[in-house]
């Protein structure tokens, strides 16, 4: 057998080893992110769900002012956990709209009563249609949308205390 051929299996194994070792020591990011970051917000119109709060449409994000779009639900436990941070952002002057996923009015009203209500508008997405259209893979998620309706940033998962500064800065810079 030719000499180089004899050493090929060992070389291939070294390559294989490097691949799996890399996978082990540099764990891949399992979070599924939206592919629409940097692209325009898809058009949508959602009816209202909470009494006294208007529904939400994509046109609301083209009014010249950056806004935060929060995807949440009353049945989602981390959403309750992030409510204080959203209230803080609202106090800092960030306008927040929401899409409620697979929610019912009574449960939602109860959630807002218990956890605070930082939202200007809440859209009713019973069948996750808009959630799918946005490339969102769960609740909670938040999107920073600039004044011209372009998605600037996606935050997957609940907003923690140290995320507040990043998001506020993103809103500021999105002008």
């Amino acid at each position, binding site marked *: 057998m030719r000499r180089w051929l004899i050493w090929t299996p060992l070389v291939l194994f070294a390559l294989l080893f490097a691949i799996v070792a890399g996978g082990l020591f540099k764990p891949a990011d399992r979070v*599924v992110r939206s592919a629409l970051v940097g692209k325009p917000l898809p058009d949508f119109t959602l009816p209202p769900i909470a009494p006294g709060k208007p529904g939400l449409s994509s046109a609301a994000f083209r009014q010249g002012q950056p806004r935060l779009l929060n995807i949440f639900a009353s049945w989602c*436990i981390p959403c309750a956990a992030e409510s204080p941070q959203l209230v803080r952002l609202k106090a800092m002057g960030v306008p927040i709209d929401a899409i409620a996923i697979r929610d019912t009015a009574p449960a939602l009203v109860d959630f807002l009563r218990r956890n605070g209500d930082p939202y200007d508008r809440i859209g009713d997405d019973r069948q996750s*249609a808009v959630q*799918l259209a946005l*490339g969102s893979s769960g609740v909670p998620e938040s999107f920073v949308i600039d004044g011209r309706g372009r998605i600037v940033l996606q935050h997957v998962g609940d907003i923690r205390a140290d995320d507040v500064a990043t998001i506020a800065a993103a809103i500021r810079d999105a002008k």
Partner: protein
Amino acid sequence: MRRLLLLLALAVAAPVSADPSTPPAALAYTQLRDPAQEAQARDLMATLRCVVCQGQSIADSDASMAGDMRALVRSRIAAGETPEAIRAWLVERYGDYVTYDPPFGAATWPLWLAPVALLVIGALIARSSFRRTRR
């Protein structure tokens, strides 16, 4: 009787973990009337990945989001869209992660060319076993 009620309550109670209690979408668990369309939808669903599961297609998962994706696929097929268009729409939003059929492109050409390359290299190696046809 109490036991029956308890068990039934168990059946309809929402679990403690984060799961919606609203009923699944109409087309998540219902087939399309046209068998050809349903077959198309089923073939497509088997190749789309559930984004909230541990490695399942949307056809095999009971997660509510998978159900919503099935409803989306079925309603679009019923409306006349081609499976490729629906797949492209989802890839536009979730990236190549959502399709189990990796598209041939800059990131995947080694994957798709590997079978051919392996056959050629293997054939060349095997040739050396026959090199001398007569002793």
